């Protein structure tokens, strides 16, 4: 059994460490690329959301390298993601790729079936091994997310432009080769030191932009055309509250054990969106409000075309923009999105943010032109 799993930003680190610790054989598919998207678009239903298409591309590219089993997480709606695994299995089998799929979820609250699947994955039921794997996976997820957050801070302030991108890219490549938790942790630590040793402009006060939206398109840099790095290189500090470690710890572990969770975003969203409606709509609304209250200069929402929860969020965001006087840009991505048009919109948005900052610094002495 050779396992593979779909890409989503740095999720591959989490996936590979989990499988390393469980002692399973696996293949990490090539990083998201144009070919993967083309393959996925060919087989997926045309109006499916973008992540499904890239997932399929990942599987098929891994299949070509010898993978035969897919590891995927599931859910029970209402977002389409919950049905990804089941539909992907149908599509792959119809297309002649004979792959099996292990969906980590509790079908109809069936704990036994869930444990069976874990057993299959772990090749036995060594409770000690499984607990250690979960603990180390959670740890590495957290460390990688912290490292990424660090790049958000350093990138706009670095003196030699492009240094952060270079180091971070090398880290992602090297991580493919790392084996086990210890090696991965060391790599994260080395990269962190390297980033901290970069020369930065400490007096620089960057604009701050919050990124909200659907989890896949915000986390996965390839899909968002490296939005966080683009903004960073324009001298803007970004913040992205929805992360993979947050998802694992808050949504899976804490909610399964009924532990208290950080629900500030729920409270912030309440006047605009009273309930959880699936996906990350509530996070999008809540975090946009929190960003506005924390004095951020702007908010960017990113989501794949036809994403149901984010459409609801998008129709509510103008009210937040009005109430808090904060600019919001919505970027919608599908397999046809052209990078140039996308970049133009981001540049126009950042120009607007710059101008707004000048306006507030001049205060009352606003002038249209001076001779």
């Amino acid at each position, binding site marked *: 059994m050779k396992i593979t799993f779909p890409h989503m930003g740095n999720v591959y680190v989490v996936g590979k460490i989990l499988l390393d610790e469980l002692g399973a054989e696996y293949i990490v598919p090539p990083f998201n690329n144009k070919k993967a998207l083309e393959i996925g678009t060919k087989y997926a239903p045309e109006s499916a959301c973008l992540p499904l298409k890239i997932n399929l591309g990942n599987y098929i590219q891994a299949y070509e390298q010898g993978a035969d089993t897919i590891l995927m997480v599931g859910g*029970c709606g209402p977002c389409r993601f919950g*049905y990804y695994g089941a*539909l992907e299995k149908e599509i792959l089998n119809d297309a002649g790729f004979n792959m099996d799929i292990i969906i980590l979820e509790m079908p109809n609250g069936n704990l036994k079936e869930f444990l069976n699947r874990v057993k299959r994955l772990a090749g036995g039921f060594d409770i000690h091994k499984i607990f250690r794997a979960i603990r180390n996976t959670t740890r590495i997820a957290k460390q990688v997310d912290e490292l990424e957050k660090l790049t958000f801070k350093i990138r706009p302030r670095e003196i030699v432009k492009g240094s952060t991108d270079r180091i971070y890219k090398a880290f992602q490549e090297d991580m493919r080769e790392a084996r086990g938790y210890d090696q991965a942790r060391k790599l994260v630590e080395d990269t962190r030191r390297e980033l901290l040793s970069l020369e930065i402009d400490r007096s620089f006060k960057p604009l701050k932009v919050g990124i909200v939206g659907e989890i896949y398109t915000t986390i996965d840099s390839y899909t968002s055309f490296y939005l966080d790095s683009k903004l960073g290189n324009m001298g803007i500090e970004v913040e992205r509250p929805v992360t993979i470690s947050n998802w694992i710890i808050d949504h899976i572990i804490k909610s399964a054990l009924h532990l208290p969770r950080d629900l500030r975003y729920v409270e912030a969203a309440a006047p605009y969106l*009273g*309930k959880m409606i*699936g996906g990350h709509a509530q996070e999008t609304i809540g975090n946009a409000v929190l960003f506005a209250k924390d004095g951020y200069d702007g908010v960017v929402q990113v989501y794949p075309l036809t994403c*149901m929860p984010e*459409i609801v969020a998008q129709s509510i965001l103008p009210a937040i923009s009005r109430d808090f006087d904060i600019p919001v840009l919505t970027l919608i991505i599908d397999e046809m999105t052209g990078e140039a048009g996308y970049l133009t919109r981001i540049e126009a948005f950042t120009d607007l943010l710059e101008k707004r900052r000048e306006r507030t610094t001049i205060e009352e002495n606003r002038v249209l032109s001076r001779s």
Partner: protein
Amino acid sequence: MKKKIGIPRSLFYYQLFPFWKTFFEELGAEIVVSDRTTKKILDDGVKSCVDEACLPVKLFHGHVINLKDRVDCLFIPRYTSISRGEYVCPKFGGLPDMIRNSFEELPQIIGTEINLRKSNAAAFKAALEIGSYFCSHKKRIERACHMALKAYGDFVKQGVNGKFPGDLLDGSQPKAVAGSRNGRLNIVVIGHAYNLYDSYINMDLVYKLRCSNANVITVENVSEEIINEKSAQLFKRMFWNFGRKAAGTALHILDRSDIDGVIYLMSFGCGIDSFVCDLVERKLRHSRDIPFTILTIDEHSGEAGLNTRLEAFLDMIRWRKENENYISAHG
């Protein structure tokens, strides 16, 4: 004076109106339903809604505009779930919020959450809350709820007995099928009630099929037991109410020899349809060669295109029935 409650003729109107009609009438409210969909209602909706939303949600905005200045309150409950363990759609769950944040001046909105995902008792609690806007007697609300359930039960039963729900709600379409019994086709049209029973939005699809001597059968004509039994065969249980019904119906079609063709009516950008339609098509094509076509509608559908596709589909079925075993000797 009676309180006027506005119910948009859109989305769940086509599934649950018999329930709410009885419920509000029993409580002594005056019900105002928005007008039948017109081009103006659709255009108004498209203008006031985000571009990315699907057609039915845009249309809903249009119906709200049509109603908002002539009622005391608008009935836009948050339909999170209408059946155990299942959801409706994220957009339905966020509908009252979308409406509230899209319009400046609105009458009071009754946006009570209806969430039957965990228990049916929640429905009763929601009904009590909705009823309390009109009446303070708990007993009376309970009775209204009871009567409404009965009316709704009758409506569902009539559907299962072969009545076309669209005819029960809206008598504007010719009920009878034109043409002789000979050569009459049985066409299953799978689609959301709000697309299927709004004849403006689907460009008179049902009327056109009937005029071409075809019976129209819908998801509502299949009983819940059959749907549940069939949909249980899926690799993974569907967690959307409509998804389960559509998949169950599709699997039921496979058992029937009297179905001549299947049309899947979907609205562009519908997240649920993008998955369910694909799954239904795969299930049908795997085991049978029943003719299958997809009609996608959006706010700029051209009627001629739909007509052409429909005619071609029906002609193909008829030619195939007549000539299936005929192979030209001329090659």
